[in-house]
């Protein structure tokens, strides 16, 4: 491989690896938050059935917990967007 070929290929190769990285980043990055948010909401449903009178507090805690859990998915989204438009 001569030097000219390398110079021609390095740009597309960078872009290619960035795009593949974006896909992997978002794909694996959303496994955890998706399941985690679901576990939070599922336990909230169970808790409401045990103590329906504490509905408001449980619901609020669930929403806050889900928002915090979702932040990791948003990190992945931001990095994936940066990579995709690299």
């Amino acid at each position: 491989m001569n030097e000219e070929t390398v110079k021609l290929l390095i740009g597309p190769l960078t872009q290619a690896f960035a795009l593949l990285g974006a896909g992997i980043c978002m794909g694996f990055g959303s496994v955890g938050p998706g399941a985690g948010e679901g576990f939070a909401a599922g336990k909230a449903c169970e808790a409401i059935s045990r103590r329906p009178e504490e509905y408001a507090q449980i619901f609020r805690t669930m929403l806050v917990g889900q928002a915090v859990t979702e932040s990791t998915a948003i990190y992945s989204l931001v990095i994936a967007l940066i990579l995709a438009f690299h």
Partner: protein
Amino acid sequence: MVKVKTGLAAGAFFLTEGGLAFASMDKPPALRLLGLTFNHSTIIHTAIVALAIYVFVRLLTRRLSREHPQRGQVFLEILVTFLSDLAKQTIGPNRGVRYLPFLGTLFIFVWGANMLSMIPLRINQIGGEFFNDYNSNGIYDPGEPFIDANGDGVHNPGFQIPLFEEPTADLSFPAALAIIFVLFLGHGSGIYFHGIAGYCKEYFSPGGIMGVCMFPLNVIGKLAELVSISFRIFGNIFGGAIIMTVVASLIYYFLLPVGMFGYFTVFVGTIQAFVFTMLAATYIAMEAGESTEAEAD
């Protein structure tokens, strides 16, 4: 010579000497109007379903009687009770009844559409001219035979395809229903019940700066509802049709796979029609449902 062109959108499968072969069926010449393409096979089959439902319900409601209900009347009463329970449970005891005519129509129509391929009429297709006279752009193009089973350069052996196909196996049918029922009816009644300001507030759902950030995601989430509801029934019915065609062509000379036919057409078709109706009701309820907060507090 009049050619009837219908059949599965996927094409047809054959058992040849070389193994299982597939003939991609070119689409019949589509009608083009104002930049839109109309698939006339789907349109005709949709009209057939509507007509058949009208005739059936007319026949069943001929002699209504309070004292001596006939069998058809009892059947329809069970159906209406079932659907009204569904509407009340999903949308709410007061507003749910208003949506009963819509949801009932939707369920019966989609169910009838899924059952259309139960009609056991088949067309005998001999040779490849059925497939190859028109290419995918609808232009007359008598190309070479699509499969050369015997190696003699002539057409494939004859086969049969169903005369009636489910319109739900074409994506445009469930997509149109989803647009009517989820977008127009659901979001329309959201505006009707909550006002334009209350409706728009939903799109900034957590509120504050976070809500502004989430706005595009909320819009995409609403659009994803349409995609998921229409692709669900399309994939199921289309997949069932492919499975039935493959199995029927594999054991063509022995027997008809009655059990599989019953499962994929009758059972899955009924369940998916019900799921479609129920999801439409749920999406309507999320826009226009009675407030559960007031009930809970």
